């Protein structure tokens, strides 16, 4: 076996340039997914009529199918819908002018939404019911109580899971290479086939992902310490 | 006969047992009393090497284990001669009452299933739990769980049963049933060493009382002597406090009534 160690370094530098795209594909879906997650959680906790079942199905379906399916369904299905609408309403607009990245972001946002809703729900359910009652007892509305009292505590509880989902999505973003996105894995693929050094390129990519994961674990550990300051027992 | 010679144990640099000597004759029931932190539970756990003493020897039924050179095999042999009843019962959660009692017979004593089952039913009858044989521990009250714990120990027919505060974790109304079972098996002539806070029970059931404080045996003797004529100041103080607490409890009760 010959491994070109030096080439791993070259590849590392080349592939690293794709980091911004990986970050976009990781973070944008998580942020949109967070908002979707809050919406879904409220629907599920309040058992909103009609929407409740839909929300349950959405979460169950997304969690029950691979993320690759979500990307493909949106990437292949949404253009059909858009072109049809464009045809009906005579828009001078075609789906081909939409970059694929946008579809990837939309699809992964839907993916993230389902997982986020589970995390947020678990966080909210973990907050003592007494907190809500105490907030309402001093005259807060239910909305105020949720936003000012319950939610901040729920997020602190959910922090480890939020870190996990970040790492999960960092890795999931690699799937985007299948629809030819030049994020880390896509870049590794290009470096690999251009130089016919597959193993070295993927080792380099692996090192970058691994490094990013370790950094995010360390950051979470720090955040966790800060977020749960109020949770410490004792007086000191 | 059980003999402890110069048992010493320290945690970190704190000496919790300062060289204990104790002899328990066959068929005797010995209770170890003393304030919390006196080292009595540690002493009990040293007898079956759940805590390994730093110094000293344990002899059970002519089999001696030296703390310095005890091999795994020797410790195992020692444990086969003893059995323990725990404060928190520690029943095997994933096994039924019956299986809990049979476990040691099957695995350690290599009895046949039939023999084990028969014996298990006998001891369960002794602790009055035959009808719970197929229940899981979680389905039992604390008192019932502890009675199973006693049955599990009894089934092994050990040289000695070590009881570590068997009623401390129980709700007050469940203490009685467990003490009653212990009393019954004591009357059968089974050797027992009991660490307990139940002073009046100890007085009632024991042939011999050991009073410990700060890692040492302060005073020992028959219940009559120890309870009626304690010599040591620390022993007297301990009983005085216990009596006062009992008195407070009683006056509380009477005020409720």
């Amino acid at each position, binding site marked *: *076996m010959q491994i070109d160690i030096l080439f791993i370094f070259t590849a590392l530098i080349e592939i690293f340039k794709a980091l911004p795209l990986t970050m976009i594909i990781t973070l944008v879906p998580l942020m949109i997914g967070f908002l979707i997650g809050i919406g879904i959680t409220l629907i599920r906790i309040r058992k909103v009529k009609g929407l409740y079942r839909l929300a349950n199905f959405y979460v169950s379906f997304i969690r029950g199918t691979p993320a*690759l399916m979500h990307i493909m369904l949106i990437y292949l299905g949404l253009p059909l819908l858009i072109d049809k609408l464009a045809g009906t309403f005579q828009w001078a607009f075609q789906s081909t002018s939409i970059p694929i990245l946008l579809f990837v972001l939309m699809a992964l946002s839907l993916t993230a939404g389902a997982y986020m809703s589970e995390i947020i729900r678990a966080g909210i359910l973990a907050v003592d019911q007494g907190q809500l009652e105490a907030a309402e007892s001093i005259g807060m509305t239910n909305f105020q109580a949720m936003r000012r009292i319950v939610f901040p505590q729920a997020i602190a509880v959910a922090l480890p899971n939020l870190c996990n989902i970040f790492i999960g999505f960092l890795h999931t973003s690699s799937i985007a290479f299948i629809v030819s996105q030049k994020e880390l894995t896509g870049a590794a693929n290009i470096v690999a086939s251009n130089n016919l050094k597959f193993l070295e390129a993927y080792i380099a990519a692996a090192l970058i*992902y691994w490094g*990013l994961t370790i950094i995010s674990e360390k950051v979470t550990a720090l955040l966790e310490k800060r977020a749960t300051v109020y949770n410490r027992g004792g007086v000191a | 006969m059980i003999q402890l010679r110069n048992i010493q144990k320290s945690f970190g640099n704190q000496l919790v047992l300062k060289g204990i000597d104790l002899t328990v004759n066959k068929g005797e029931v010995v209770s170890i009393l003393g304030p919390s932190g006196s080292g009595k539970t540690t002493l009990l756990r040293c007898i079956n090497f759940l805590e390994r003493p730093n110094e000293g020897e344990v002899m059970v039924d002519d089999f001696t284990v030296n703390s310095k050179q005890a091999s795994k095999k020797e410790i195992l042999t020692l444990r*086969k001669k*003893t059995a323990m009843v725990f404060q928190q019962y520690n029943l095997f959660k994933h096994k039924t009452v019956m299986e809990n009692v049979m476990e040691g017979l099957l695995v350690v004593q290599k009895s046949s299933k039939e023999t084990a089952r028969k014996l298990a039913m006998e001891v369960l009858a002794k602790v009055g739990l035959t009808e719970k044989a197929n229940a899981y521990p979680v389905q039992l009250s604390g008192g019932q769980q502890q009675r199973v714990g006693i049955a599990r120990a009894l089934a092994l027919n050990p040289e000695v049963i070590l009881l570590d505060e068997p009623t401390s974790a129980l709700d007050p109304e469940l203490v009685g049933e467990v003490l009653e079972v212990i009393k019954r098996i004591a009357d059968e002539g089974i050797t027992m060493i009991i660490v307990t806070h139940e002073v009046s029970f100890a007085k009632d059931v024991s042939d011999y009382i050991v009073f410990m404080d700060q890692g040492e045996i302060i005073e020992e003797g028959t219940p009559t002597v120890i309870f009626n004529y304690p010599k040591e100041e620390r022993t007297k103080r301990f009983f005085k406090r216990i009596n006062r607490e009992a008195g407070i409890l009683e006056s509380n009760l009477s005020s409720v009534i």
Partner: protein
Amino acid sequence: MDITLIIDFFPKLISYLHITLLILVAAVAIGLIIGVTIALIRIYKVPAFNRLALIYISFMRGTPILIQLFLIYFGLPALLTLVHIDVSRANPLLFVAITYGLSCGASFAEIIRGAVNGVERGQTEAAYSIGMNEKQMLVRIILPQALAMAFPNFANSVIGSLKDTSLAFTIGVMDMVGRGNTLIASSLHALEVYMTLSIIYYGVVLCLEKGFSLSEKKLQRFEGSLAVDTK
């Protein structure tokens, strides 16, 4: 879009489900062996090996399954040429099974370790007090309880692996998704193919979830009414 095509594609794709399930079963089997071994190494802090185990777990947790798949696919044959074994023509299924097995192994190891540490100390003491040796204690008392406790996480992990198998086609495995791609090439109806695939995956996941929750009830029956959701 032609919805009726789904009915047409369904039998064609589901006839490849067994390949997907084969990958899953192989991965879980390999994963269990690795997982138990690594967990024991971590629990007993076996010198040297403990470090290796930590690095292994961190790496598997730190990299996407897709990258792991490529590393094994390109790396294993290269590694094996050192000992003069030629696997360059081996069925890609082999590489997939190994990759997913290694990946499962890492997550199972952490799940098992967590569960073993979650068994109360008193259980060990009780086992010792009736004269059990270390192996008997581990096999008869600790592991059965730990496995029952670990089961929900284990089930989640298996379902995650099932979904991960959808990426096996990238190294040329003819599983459901691989077959789907040939269908796309011949029919030019990609969306319908992916809709059919999604329905099949969803169906399988729902079945697995049902099966797991039934086994969980059975496994944890000793937890009685006090059973807690470990999620």
